[in-house]
């Protein structure tokens, strides 16, 4: 059974590793020294934090746009009685990376990502044909730099 509260040391590990992880031969040893832990203790903690679901990812985060592909945010107004069917139809596309239900007239919000940017419009057209609903594409025109972290 996963713990429901993070201990003080785990909390420091989560906060510190959000800031970054070294690109060196022994990165856990370097990070562990800053935290006052041993290398193997830190490796064990990160493994447990991942297994218990405190961390969703650990490693490099890639920017799909910079890889020459494309991404867009997209939104739809889905009638409540069709919501589950439409969610299945949208999610069935492998290019749909995230999909969230949100409280608004536009009540389904998803991200379409593809290595081939021209594929984005193909997926949107397919979703509109399959669901009979309009898709509003909202590709980013500018990304503002952010520094936010989640304090554990």
């Amino acid at each position, binding site marked *: 059974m996963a713990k429901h509260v993070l201990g003080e040391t785990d909390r420091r590990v989560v906060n510190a590793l959000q800031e970054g992880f070294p690109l060196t031969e022994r990165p856990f040893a370097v990070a562990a020294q800053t935290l006052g832990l041993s290398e193997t203790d830190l490796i064990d903690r990160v493994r447990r934090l991942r297994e218990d679901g405190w961390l969703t990812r650990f490693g490099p*985060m890639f920017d799909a746009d910079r890889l020459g592909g494309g991404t867009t945010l997209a939104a739809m107004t889905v009638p409540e009685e069709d919501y589950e069917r439409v969610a299945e139809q949208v999610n069935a596309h492998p290019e749909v990376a995230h999909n969230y239900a*949100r409280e608004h007239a536009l009540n389904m919000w*998803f991200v379409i990502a593809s*290595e081939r940017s021209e594929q984005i419009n193909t997926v949107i057209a397919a979703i509109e044909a399959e669901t009979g609903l309009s898709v*509003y594409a909202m590709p980013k025109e500018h990304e503002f730099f952010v520094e936010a972290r989640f304090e554990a």
Partner: protein
Amino acid sequence: MTVMPPFPIDEIDRRIIKATQAGLPLCQRPYAAVAGDVGVSEGEVIRRLRRMLEARIVRRVAAVPNHYRLGYVANGMTVWDVDDDAVLELGSAVGRLPFVSHSYLRPRHRPAWPYNLFAMVHGKSRAEADEKAAVIAGLLGDACHGHAILYSTRILKKTGLRLGA
């Protein structure tokens, strides 16, 4: 427009991305383990990841917490209708607020969607997230003509971005 041009990557970069996009191996020499999978040296993996970090293909090498587990259960997409001639400057200021995790300029779709500035805020309650939205409203002032907060009620899919899917 400040969208950076695509950065050319080669087949070895692609193999490194595929070998690490689900996460780094949890061992003393994780880059050596990746190197073994990819078929290059450990130093080559580190050099290429550094280069991709400098080119912003890699945003960060870091841990990403499950913010729901940490108690941030109120996740609001705040959206704002901001004057076009002020939105780049004001959006930069919004991005610098410590509680904004993503912020983008996106196209409007009038009349259904008048909003052009997006900022994700997170709180341990909706009241806390609403307070953060009020700080953004104060910062935008008269340049903003309307806003909404769209709280997520359900994750329908979350697979992340995958190369070669």
